[in-house]
């Protein structure tokens, strides 16, 4: 099981890296799906099968597919892919990589600074029903809020997609 974790971790890292650095949006999204699947495996190994399933069904299956639809809707073609490549030349990555490396170093220092205290109980696989009880027990207000958030997202999305050109929203360098 431990070995499976490290394999999944390696896959997740590699796939995520490619997802972030790939010039083609569709390829990038497919790499991200791979990364999510690897994460789902890790969740399973950590004893959370229900969440692992959700990761696959909702994240990979719904959210990323939504991305794919949009990308296809926008007809991002070969020319734009070339432009995309010019945007992600290695020089561009220097600053962000350094910033991220510093952040990673800081986080690693925090994580490895002292070993975590011993757990109260041995890790146990939790059943979906436990999660459900937790959600509708102590977290019921948070569930309500999450519902509101989803509603707000729904309204926002349906408002933003309206094809209203009367609102000027022009960036620099656009044709007038």
């Amino acid at each position, binding site marked *: 099981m431990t070995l499976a974790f490290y394999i999944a971790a390696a896959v997740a890292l590699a796939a995520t890296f490619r997802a972030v650095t790939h010039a083609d949006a569709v390829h990038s999204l497919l790499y991200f799906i791979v990364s999510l699947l690897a994460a789902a495996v890790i969740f399973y190994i950590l004893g959370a099968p229900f969440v692992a399933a959700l990761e696959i069904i909702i994240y990979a299956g719904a959210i990323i597919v939504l991305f794919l639809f949009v990308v296809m809707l926008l007809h991002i073609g070969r020319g734009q892919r070339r432009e995309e490549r010019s945007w992600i030349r290695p020089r561009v990555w220097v*600053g962000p990589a350094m*910033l991220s490396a*510093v*952040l990673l170093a800081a986080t690693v220092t925090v994580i490895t600074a002292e070993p975590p205290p011993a757990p109260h109980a041995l890790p146990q696989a939790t059943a979906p029903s436990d999660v459900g009880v937790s959600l509708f027990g102590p977290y019921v207000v948070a569930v309500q809020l999450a519902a509101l958030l989803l509603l707000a997202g729904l309204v926002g999305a349906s408002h933003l997609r309206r094809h209203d050109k009367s609102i000027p929203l022009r960036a620099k360098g656009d044709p007038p």
Partner: protein
Amino acid sequence: MYELLWLVPALPFAGFLVIAAGGRRLPAAAAGWTGCAAVGIPAALSLVFAAGFLFAPPEGHAHTQVLWTWIGTETLRAEAALRLDALSLTMTAVITVVGFLIHIYSTEYMRGDADFRRFFAYLNLFVAAMLVLVLADNLVLLLLGWEGVGLCSFLLIGFWYGKRENAMAARKAFLVTRTGDVALLLAIFLLVRETGTANIADILARAPEVFAEGSATANAAALLLLGGAIGKSAQLPLQVWLPDAMAGPTPVSALIHAATMVTAGVYLIARTHGVFLLAPDVMFVVALVGAATLLLGALAALAQSDIKRVLAYSTVSQLGYMFLALGAGAWSAAMFHFMTHAFFKALLFLGAGAVITALHHEQNLHRMGGLRKKLPLVFWTFLIGTACLAAVPLVTSGFYSKEKILWDVWISPYGGPGFWIAGATGAFLTALYCTRMVALVFFGEAKTEVSERPGGRVSFVLVVLAVWSLIGGGVELPHTFAHVKVFSGFLAHTVTTVVELPPGLDWLLWLLLGIASVLVFGGIAVGWALYRGGEPPPILRRAGVDAARRGAHGGFGFDTAYDLLFVRPFTALARANRADIVDRAAAGTAYSARLLHNILSATQSGRLRWYSATIAAGVILILAIALLT
């Protein structure tokens, strides 16, 4: 009858509103007659009130009319209430009657002036403010009138503001009187704090309970009141503004700077005499100020070459007599002199105005002369006015009022022979400069052609005032002449009588009257001997005398001294602070705010990735702080 009291100040104010709002739509003549009527009706009313007070006095010899509650707090209550008693009635009657006559005079004198309407608007506003001042039931309302007359004085001195000197004179008058006003304000604060009321009658009633006689608080209150009074009444050392105030039109000089406003200080002290009686030391200071001012004013009047400045210094000097009387506790003598002075000084100013108009606005005494034949009416009325001013015995009102002051000063517990000598010397000097003025203006050779003779209205006013100046003294005679005490009897219910006549001193009164009369005639004789030819006598050209004349001409260097003491340091300070050091702090705040704004504004690049990077940098910073500490 007394319910109509509110009309007395309200009508002039209404007149002001009508004329000011009417503007150019109102014909000039209509504006003039509105102004006259707005003062004439109150004049008639006040005469009716005076008759009522004389023959059927109201209960308590006072009538209070509460108009509305103006300021009502727990600790201070100031009602807009008018109080009519003998003191305020005397003032009201003089203000409205003399004011009415001067209004009539002005309709002719100011004819053809481009700002004829504005003049009458200001004049009415002045009368309204002055009446509020004298009728006020409490100190706060009194202050409203006090500041109102100050404002009108400023506006009317600078009436012809196109000329720089006039505007400067107006400013000077305003600033100098304001110095006194600050003292008055402090006095009001002090009295309200100590007695817990702003009502003047209540203050006078409570003062003996609150203040011990001669205590520091009583002295402070009286001194502060005196400060306000000397500012308004142009007494030493704040007398410098009055001669310059002659820059205003002559009717203004007659009304404001001779008859009414400058006597507000006298009225204030008489009104609050109860406080002064508790501060005998301050009473002495009042008498001292009056004595010094009357001598100084008389000497300065002797050396002036401008006819209006002669009259201005003589006003300063006569106000000095009133202060001397107040300092001696001779309240009714001061008010009596105020009344006669209002008539004859208004007469003199109006006569001087007629002379000035007749001579193409020539005001220099040395370019006048020989007007006796050309302006006989002006000559005779002016002569009567001068005789009153010089206190020619028996026939003039000025004699009775001035002699009453001198006599009261001698016998008063607060006065004494020393003050009598100062007053008698002043009487001699007054006779001297009066003779000089008349000789230079009306005798000798004519030096300027007469271009215009006074019209019907001017002549009428001059005659009326001349008659009153002659007979006005009849209401109060020395007891050795006849027992006529109308005036002091009238006031006795309002002011505390301090000066009691000791029995068996009639010989002294006769003696003092005789000496004073001799001094007056001596002054006239000396003046006539020197100026008979209408020319300055040769003695003036001697070096020492000339220097003294120059000093007196310049008002004894008070202006120069104040210039050195106050104006120069102030302007030097202002010049040193030209870059406005204090403002730098404020400007620095604005500058640093702008700097910070620019810095923060630069971070708002509008670029999404830049924002993400700053968030990340912030997270790193927080982590670093958490790790390193």
